[in-house]
């Protein structure tokens, strides 16, 4: 097998490989198309259905499409100070949380990657295992804790809550990214006289940057989409977009929720689209093995 064909093996998105081009029987073709249609309906159906509703003035059952179209609900959302406030808050919290998370986790990731210290594996796993405790139970207990620390309803309280959700991304992924930078490159830099800090910033970090970027994006989205904890800790002062969704769904017409959903989904779609190439790279399985 040529090198080109072997290279194509390591991509989750399939490249054109020379398959035995037998005439695929009609039954197989039909099944394939059915599979695609089913998956399309299953995955995208709900999203499209919701998106259409955002542009509906009136839509009664059992019509397949709205009775009449309109952008009025968009105006409703944009005119509402409450909603726009939550939008702005989301965009204040998420970057803050991401920056803090990066600042504390990336050095740790470097340590995990480069130094073999006792308990390293245990620590890595426990950072991950803390996600096993159901978030809600955690927040309840934290609520008490926060009350005594006077963090309830405070900016810092919400930051901490969102921060916790990002820690796993910000440690595991950069650890893998740093580990992927060959030691020999760092040694070569030291050999020509660069000090440890310079080696880090000129050699290690740039090479690990794509992985770190993915971690940053995933952390940003984790913070941005965090709802339960923010609900518990931030109410009534700080209501972010996801938290707002919970009440929207119950108290407002479906169209408003639909509009809000699209707004809330935009950062996700944009950022994940950006990170897609790296997330979907074939090395994902290795990243989850504990070495």
């Amino acid at each position, binding site marked *: 097998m040529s090198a080109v064909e072997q290279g194509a093996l390591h991509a989750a998105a399939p490249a054109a490989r020379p398959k035995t081009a037998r005439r695929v029987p009609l039954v197989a073709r039909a099944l394939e198309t059915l599979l695609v249609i089913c998956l399309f309906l299953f995955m995208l159906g709900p999203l499209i259905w919701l998106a259409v509703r955002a542009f509906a003035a009136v839509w009664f*059952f059992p019509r397949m499409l709205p009775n009449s179209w309109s952008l009025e609900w968009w105006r409703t959302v944009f005119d509402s100070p409450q909603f726009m406030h939550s939008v702005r808050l989301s965009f204040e919290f998420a970057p803050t949380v991401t920056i803090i998370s990066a600042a504390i*986790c990336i050095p740790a990731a470097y340590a995990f990657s480069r130094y073999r210290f006792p308990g390293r594996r245990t620590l890595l796993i426990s950072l991950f295992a803390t996600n096993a405790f159901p978030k809600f139970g955690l927040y*309840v*207990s934290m609520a008490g*804790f926060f009350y005594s620390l006077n963090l309830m309803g405070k900016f810092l309280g919400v930051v901490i809550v969102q921060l916790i959700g990002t820690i796993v991304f910000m440690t595991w992924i950069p650890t893998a990214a740093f580990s992927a930078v060959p030691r020999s490159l760092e040694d070569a830099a030291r050999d020509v006289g660069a000090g440890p800090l310079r080696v880090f910033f000129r050699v290690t970090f740039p090479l690990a940057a794509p992985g770190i970027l993915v971690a940053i994006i995933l952390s940003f989205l984790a913070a941005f989409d965090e709802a339960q904890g923010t609900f518990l800790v931030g109410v009534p002062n700080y209501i972010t977009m996801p938290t707002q969704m919970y009440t929207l769904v119950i108290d407002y017409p479906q169209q408003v929720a639909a509009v809000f959903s699209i707004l809330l989904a935009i950062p996700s779609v944009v950022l994940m689209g950006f990170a897609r190439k790296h997330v979907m790279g074939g090395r994902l399985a290795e990243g989850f093995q504990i070495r």
Partner: protein
Amino acid sequence: MVLPPVGVVAAFIGFPVVAAIAYTLGKTGGPNSMVASLAQHQHVAKHGVTLAAYREMLGDHQVLGDLWATVWVTVVAVLIVLAMSWTIALYLRLRGGKIAALLSGLSVVPLFIPVVIASYALVTFYSVDGFVRTVAYNLGYHSFPTVGYTLTAVVIGEVWVNVPFGVLMLSSGLNGVPDSLIEASRDAGASLSRTVRSVLFPLNVIPTVIVATFTAIYVLGSFTVPYLVGPSAPNLLGVSMSNYFSSFNQPQQSEVLAVIVFVLAAGIGAVYVWANVRASRRAGQVA
């Protein structure tokens, strides 16, 4: 250097978790005092610990119903996720081409959408006036069952959210199997399905275990999907927890449920760790 994140986690997760567990055992002092002061119907430990809270919850048949619902929704969701992920990943690996690229793109869509939005979209899709019933109605089925706000919808929702990870993980694992191993099997006379059974699957047990355990842990503790999509009873434990806290004002009972979920999740996590350890130990035997 490792201290900061570990410190944050220890302080803001580890500590509250320990305090929560203590609380469930009746310790209402110290860090739990704030919550305890607002709580109703607590079981306080006179000395040592008391299992009264656990006895109450595990004796309550509605709670047991919730526990059972959580477990079977988890099991069903995991099985469906595995089935779908394997199917899609196998197709990607063995067929390639435009259809495969389309499938792979579709299967990772959920990664792009926040869970809150997804849940809401799913419940409107399957609700009384949703897509499914609308199509059915227009085809003549006027009383097609409503899936929304049932446990079935919860299963659908959890599957929807977890398929991308399954597909990515299994694709990655399957791509690690060289073409020549598959060709050698066919050369020996094995049909494609036999090749999958004898070569592809045994070489991908670990990724399968990873997908199963991660999905199970996620579903066990999940809140948003069952909250927005599920019935008012029985609830998944994630939602029950919230009810006991917010509606009934019984934080201790809420924490008991959290600990139960945690124990289940930890058990599953142990499977993941064991599988990984076994794999790295066998790495000497199996290339």
